[in-house]
């Protein structure tokens, strides 16, 4: 069974934000929130790197672990989705997520947040595939159409890879072997500094 993954080749990302715009347009994401963002490290300095970030669809998702109403579920494609009918907008998932993926479209009185919204890997939600209800709540369901997330398909420099984890890992490995080095934006050395022995 294929496991859906995102992989951003940070050496190719030019911070054009096309992935952000494509996602926002495809799913008609409300004002004030983005399901995907481009993060730039060492901005304006030598060695500057950009990396496109969204929900990484974790295998052991911390958002699902802390959700008090159990609204998260993982599909057979290893995509982490949630039910907006069950979500109470408590914000626990936002604090638990290491990538800042969960977003809240409305800010109401007394700090109420509204239903959580996050990247669905372009695969909708619990409603029937390609239905109007699904589109209104979660955006389009490109996976059901036999396509991949639009952010990756739109990437002009082929930086953002999406699809079967084994396939995109193979593509990335070949790139690393050819150019002789990996990403400068993520990996063990970024997380634990240069001192770590890999």
């Amino acid at each position, binding site marked *: *069974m*294929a496991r*859906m993954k995102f992989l951003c080749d940070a050496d190719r990302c030019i911070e054009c934000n096309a992935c952000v715009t494509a996602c926002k347009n495809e799913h008609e994401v409300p004002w004030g929130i983005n399901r995907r963002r481009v993060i730039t490290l060492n901005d304006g300095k030598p060695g500057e790197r950009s990396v496109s970030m969204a929900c990484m669809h974790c295998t052991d998702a911390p958002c699902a672990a802390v959700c008090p*109403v*159990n*609204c998260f*579920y*993982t*599909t*057979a*494609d290893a995509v982490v*989705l949630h*039910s907006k009918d*069950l979500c109470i907008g408590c914000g626990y998932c936002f604090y638990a997520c290491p990538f800042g993926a969960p977003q809240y479209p409305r800010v109401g009185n007394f700090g109420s947040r509204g239903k959580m919204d996050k990247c669905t890997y372009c*695969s909708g*939600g*619990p409603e029937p*595939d390609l239905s109007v209800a699904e589109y209104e709540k979660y955006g389009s*369901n490109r*996976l*059901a159409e*036999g*396509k*991949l997330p639009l952010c*990756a*398909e739109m990437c002009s420099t*082929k930086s953002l*890879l999406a*699809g*079967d984890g084994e*396939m*995109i890992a*193979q*593509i990335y490995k*070949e*790139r690393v*072997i*050819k150019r002789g080095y990996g990403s400068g934006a993520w990996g063990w050395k970024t997380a634990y500094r240069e001192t770590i022995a890999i």
Partner: protein
Amino acid sequence: MRQSDKTRKDGEGGIGRRQFFRALGGGTAAAAAAVASVPLTPTEAQAYDPGNAETRSRYRETDHVKAFYRTNGYETLKK
């Protein structure tokens, strides 16, 4: 006898104020005892089960997807 004294005492054929509160107190105590004697049975929490239809695989390796893999591996993968 004044009217106010009349109302304080038990009325004819009806229940008086003292009897009323005595009866009420006895009833409340009996109800509390009944509640205390019933063991607490917490209801089982139900986790959200999205069902097979929602969690089934939607990914298919269509020509569209194959084209994506091919174009992303143009530089490196063997054609």
